[in-house]
């Protein structure tokens, strides 16, 4: 039935290139260097770190190449054409006559994330050269870090779910190793265990969901696309094909999302993330801010159609994802207020930002969410590295803002500036990168009818601004306290949740050679640390312009490059398959369905099969270019967007001919008014928070230092406060006390006691049950039964011994008695 399509297929060919077709090499590079580090690292001059850095640079180069060629591919394609991903598979394993592949599935999303991951990893490794110099397990650290990147990259290029799980779990392993890097302290190793265990709990969903989806989709995908039910493109188009029964796909989507919750620290499985800060700061920066925790979000974005259908996104009412996302935003943001540990503030802010991404995905704002992954990576990494730089060079390896920091902006200008830039980006201040992503999310959420969650988002923006201000204030303003002031104090754990870090850094001190640094007061870090900070800050400032909606269509490159177009296309066009297809039916009974015929020829020859553009597809194809143009140019009126929404059947109704690769999504037109509103909210956040901070911490200071100094230090704020004294009381006594303290504290209590309790409690109860079962069931019942029979036999033996009395007469009696009884029975029976 696709006869027309297949001959038309020869008309237009999309550009491709070596980097694009060999993107699978990218994860291989760090994977190999991992082994190099393990086996030869110790003998190398730089203790193996050179392997790590080199491999990451290599990966970065390859990713850049791939990204460039992808952009060429997109730009070279006619308007609105479906840009087929570049797919390559080899047989990885086979089962029941079907062989399953491993390979690559490269499209816009892939290259974007590849770029981010490779880039951040490179910077973090360079940063670590300095940060961990002299660490006792320097080599191990780089090995794990490199393997981690390999895992993440592999997950990103994954062609199918199994491969994705592979990367996913490798990351879990590495996070275990890296969080527990200083495992001499029980606290660190416990944190590591908790992280692995929690994410692993989420993985139940991953396994189950993959299973459900595989078996529901496999038949359709094999028949229509000639790929297994694991393959990502297969799942995506299956989800939109209208075939899946509701129950199956919903179950699958929910299961997968549970995995995402665990990995991306969404409520209520986010509790491991703050503890994970026990690891070295570069680890926090790489794993727990910009890459690993994003895995969950990436999973949702990757097989978005499944969630789109399964969760009924854009359908009536709120859905699971958007709710979880929204809740997480607020919960995490509130938590950030009561942290005294700077890394934990950042950790919770990460959680809250991940909440934004999830909420965006849940509300059909796919592009902004993905874009937010992109931008967030830069400024969050920058913030973490900044925090690390502080503790490394100034605060004697402490992360306690209240105790060991303050007034550092004078000593660490570079760190300070980069920090401020990233903070502004994080808070979504125009024109920093955060604005273009986060604000878009909020905007689209509202546009897609989830108005409640739009307000949640705005509230989140407010809170974000507030707590970041507090953190910034405590760290850089005021005057040096504690370690920053050069004091060498024995760090006693003054706060239950901060205990881990105290121990961690104490331990860190004890066995690496950094005392030297901290001993002579606060100072700026070395260039190996500042260079990454500067680069990241620059990106935090600039990266938003990749998709700067306000400046019109030609700035919407990210959208153009990354977002898959929702076209009805010929099954053969679902992917541009390079080389021989690894997934094939081995058994003789290969489906002779006409739809597989073109695919079979793909399998046979390794020639790139060009993909026809949407014109050739019957029906819905014709109108599309105009539609696209109108949707992309929908700067001014949102109606055409509505049309665009209806133009493609994908996602809404079943495609008559061909398949869909992505659901039709619509985009909110940019409105300065809305932007302005959110800006206002953000700045309100800054302001209020600043006031509150001044009041709170100033009050503390009052007892120690004089007014004049306060004037100098607090400048403008002081005047304001003096003038608005009444407000001041109001803020401090009512608002702050009522909001910040009780509620946030309550939430935090809930978090620590209840949720945490659940996680830990699960463990302890399991152990308890285990103990009981083992002692009573296993040892008593099951085992006892066996030993019991033995003793019964023994007992019978001793019971029967009297029979063997040794008396001849009794023997005779027995003999004849038996004979007589037998005889009697026989006589009775036979007469």
């Amino acid at each position, binding site marked *: 039935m696709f006869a027309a399509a297949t001959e038309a297929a020869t008309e237009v060919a999309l550009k491709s290139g070596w980097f694009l077709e060999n993107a699978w090499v990218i994860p291989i590079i760090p994977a190999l260097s991992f082994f190099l580090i393990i086996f030869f690292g110790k003998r190398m001059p730089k203790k193996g770190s050179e392997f790590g850095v080199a491999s990451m640079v290599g990966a970065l180069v390859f990713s850049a190449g791939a990204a460039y060629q992808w952009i060429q591919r997109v730009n070279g394609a006619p308007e609105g054409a479906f840009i087929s991903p570049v797919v390559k598979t080899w047989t990885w394993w086979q089962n029941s006559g079907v062989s399953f592949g491993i390979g690559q599935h490269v499209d816009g999303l892939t290259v974007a994330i590849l770029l981010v991951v490779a880039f951040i990893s490179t910077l973090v490794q360079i940063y670590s050269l300095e940060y961990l110099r002299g660490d006792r397990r320097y080599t191990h650290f780089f090995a794990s870090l490199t393997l981690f990147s390999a895992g993440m990259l592999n997950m990103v290029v994954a062609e199918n779910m199994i491969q994705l799980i592979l990367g996913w779990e490798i990351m879990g392993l590495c996070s275990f190793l890296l969080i527990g890097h200083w495992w001499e302290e029980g606290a660190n190793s416990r944190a590591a265990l908790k992280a692995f265990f929690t994410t692993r709990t989420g993985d139940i969903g991953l396994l189950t969901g993959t299973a459900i989806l595989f078996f529901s989709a496999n038949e359709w995908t094999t028949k229509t696309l000639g790929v297994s039910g694991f393959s990502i493109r297969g799942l995506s188009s299956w989800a939109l094909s209208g075939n899946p029964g509701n129950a199956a796909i919903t179950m699958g989507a929910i299961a997968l999302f549970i995995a995402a919750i665990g990995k991306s620290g969404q409520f209520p499985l986010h509790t491991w993330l703050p503890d994970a800060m026990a690891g070295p700061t570069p680890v926090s920066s790489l794993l727990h801010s910009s890459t690993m925790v994003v895995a969950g979000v990436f999973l949702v974005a990757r097989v978005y159609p499944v969630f789109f259908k399964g969760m009924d996104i854009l359908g009536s009412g709120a859905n699971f994802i958007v709710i979880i996302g929204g809740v997480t935003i607020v919960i995490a943001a509130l938590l950030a207020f009561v942290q005294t540990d700077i890394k934990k503030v950042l950790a919770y802010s990460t959680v809250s930002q991940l909440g934004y991404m999830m909420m965006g995905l849940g509300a059909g704002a796919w592009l902004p969410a993905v874009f937010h992954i992109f931008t967030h990576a830069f400024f969050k990494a920058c913030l973490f590295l900044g925090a690390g730089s502080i503790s490394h060079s100034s605060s004697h390896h402490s992360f306690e803002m209240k105790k060991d920091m303050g007034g550092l902006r004078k000593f660490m200008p570079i760190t300070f500036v980069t920090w401020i830039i990233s903070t502004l980006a994080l808070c979504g201040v125009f024109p920093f990168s955060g604005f273009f992503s986060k604000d878009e999310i909020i905007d689209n959420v509202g546009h897609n009818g989830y108005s409640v969650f739009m307000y949640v988002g705005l509230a989140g923006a407010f809170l974000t601004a507030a707590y970041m201000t507090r953190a910034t204030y405590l760290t850089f303003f005021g005057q040096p306290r504690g370690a920053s002031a050069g004091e060498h104090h024995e760090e006693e754990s003054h706060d239950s949740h901060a205990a881990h870090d105290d121990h961690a850094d104490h331990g860190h001190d004890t066995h690496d050679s950094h005392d030297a640094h901290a001993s002579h007061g606060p100072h700026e870090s070395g260039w190996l640390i500042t260079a990454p900070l500067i680069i990241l800050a620059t990106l935090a400032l600039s990266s938003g312009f990749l998709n700067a909606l306000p400046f019109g269509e030609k700035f919407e490159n990210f959208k153009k490059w990354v977002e898959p177009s929702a076209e009805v296309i010929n099954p053969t066009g679902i992917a541009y398959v390079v080389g021989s297809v690894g997934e094939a039916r081995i058994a003789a009974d290969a489906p002779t369905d006409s739809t597989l015929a073109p695919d079979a020829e793909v399998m046979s020859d390794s020639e790139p099969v060009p993909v026809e553009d949407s014109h050739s597809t019957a029906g819905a194809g014709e109108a599309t270019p105009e539609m696209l143009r109108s949707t992309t140019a929908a700067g001014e009126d949102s109606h055409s967007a509505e049309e665009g929404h209806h133009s493609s059947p994908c996602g809404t109704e079943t495609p008559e001919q061909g398949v869909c690769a992505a659901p039709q999504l619509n985009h909110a037109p940019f409105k300065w008014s809305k932007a302005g509103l959110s800006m206002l909210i953000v700045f309100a956040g800054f302001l209020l928070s600043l006031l509150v901070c001044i009041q709170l911490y100033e009050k503390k200071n009052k007892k120690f230092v004089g007014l004049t100094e306060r004037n100098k230090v607090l400048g403008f704020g002081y005047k304001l406060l003096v003038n608005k004294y009444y407000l001041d009381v109001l803020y401090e006594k009512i608002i702050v006390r009522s909001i910040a303290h009780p509620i946030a504290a309550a939430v935090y209590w809930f978090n620590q006691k209840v949720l945490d309790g659940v996680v830990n409690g699960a463990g302890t109860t399991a152990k308890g049950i285990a103990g009981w079962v083992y002692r009573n069931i296993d040892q008593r019942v099951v085992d006892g039964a066996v030993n019991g029979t*033995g003793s019964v*036999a*023994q007992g*019978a*033996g*001793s019971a*029967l*011994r009297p*029979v*063997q009395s*040794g008396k*001849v007469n*009794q*023997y*005779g009696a*027995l*003999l*004849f*008695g*038996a*004979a007589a009884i*037998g*005889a009697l029975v*026989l*006589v009775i*029976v*036979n*007469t």
Partner: protein
Amino acid sequence: MLSTIATAAWSSPTIDYHALAPEMILGAGIVVLLLLDLFLSDSRKWLLTPVASFTLLGAFIPVLTLALSNSGTRQMFDGRYVIDDFSLVMKGMFLLSGYVVVLLAADYIREGDYYQGEFWFLMLSSLMGMVMMASSRDLISIFVALEFLSIPAYMLAAWRKRDSRSNEAGIKYYLLGVFASAIMLYGMSLLYGISNSTKLTEIGASLGSDVTSLRALAVFFVVIGFAFKISAVPFHTWAPDTYQGAPTPVTAFLSVASKAAGFVALVTVVYVGFPGSHAVWQPVFWILSAATMTLGNVMALKQTSIIRMLAYSSIAQGGFILMPLAVAGETGVAESALRAVVTYLIVYAATNLGVFAVVTVVARKTRSGEISSYGGLFSYAPGIATLMTIFMASLAGIPPLGGWFGKFAAFQSLVSAGTTWAYVLAIIGGVNSVVAFGYYGSILREMWMRPVPDGDTSPVPVKSSLAVALGITGIATLLLGVLPGIVIHFGDLAGLAGAFGR
């Protein structure tokens, strides 16, 4: 009517001397032994041992020739004395096990101060009885053979006459044995009354398949007589005491040859005499078998004396051998049941004699009959311990040692019967074979895992004759397990089972 009897024509029976050769050689040997015993001075009495052993080997030759000259079944006294495959196999087994017993006993007797001649004389006479039993197909000849093998056995049991235990063993064995044979005789008399003949085939014919209380009684009493010989529960009570009290070689002899003889008689009577009335004897055998193996095993678990433990073990083994007979009457099972019994008997003979050989060897060093005296045997006598391990494993029925095939054949015939009761018995047998390892394993445990009790780890001296005995039995046990095919042919006995006419 006496006149009629008096005037009946007398025709002297024809005698097939080739067929009778084994018996005649044995007889000659016995006479020679007696005479030599008279004329030899005590210092030269050791000559009697080779004479005895060569007699047995000599008697074995015609068995071979008869087996090889496949002249089919030879009959004498119009079918009252038959030499067929079955009887030849059993005769061969009796003679060979007799030979091994001679090897076991040689030094024992020589060192025991007195009466070598009598010992060999009695043993050969008993063997004579067994050899006759294998061919007897008539109540009278069966009875005579039975007593012929029993009475010398009584005396052998009491052979250490100054030893009160030996004495006790003899008397118990004697009284109960006679009592049992008396009951059996009563049953025989009833049989004769019913069928007006003492010839088994005719009895079988006249019994037919219909069962009356009298016939049941007769069959039952006869069965009891042999159940005593094979020490089946509850007619086993004599066995432990006798085995323990009697001299070790004699115990070996009783537990192997005499038990086998009992089975031979039982099989003969059942297969030729009452093939039709299996309704009577199948349940009897079922109960006997189940009770025998269970009680034997359970009692064996508690023993501390190795001989007594072996006594109960041989009782239990008897139960296993009985299993096939409990279904022998089912359609088409007769042959496989018979094969199973014969196979099991042969395997059991080889293994059990081996065990007693080891016991004799070890006892010569440790001078103790306690199981604990085997502690750490492996550490200072690995060869002996390994052999003992092989024998024990074989008794426990663990492949690839002979015992497993015996059990396998038994189970096979049970399952081939396919009745519920057969399966139940099979399950009981299975469980019992597990329980049995409880005590066989305890010996292995002593030998391999326990320390040497008295710390005396001087090597164990092995007399040449015992070495030969160990070699024969060990090789036989292994061979029977790995290549059962070679022995199973002996168990391939259509002739006897033919009586079932199916």
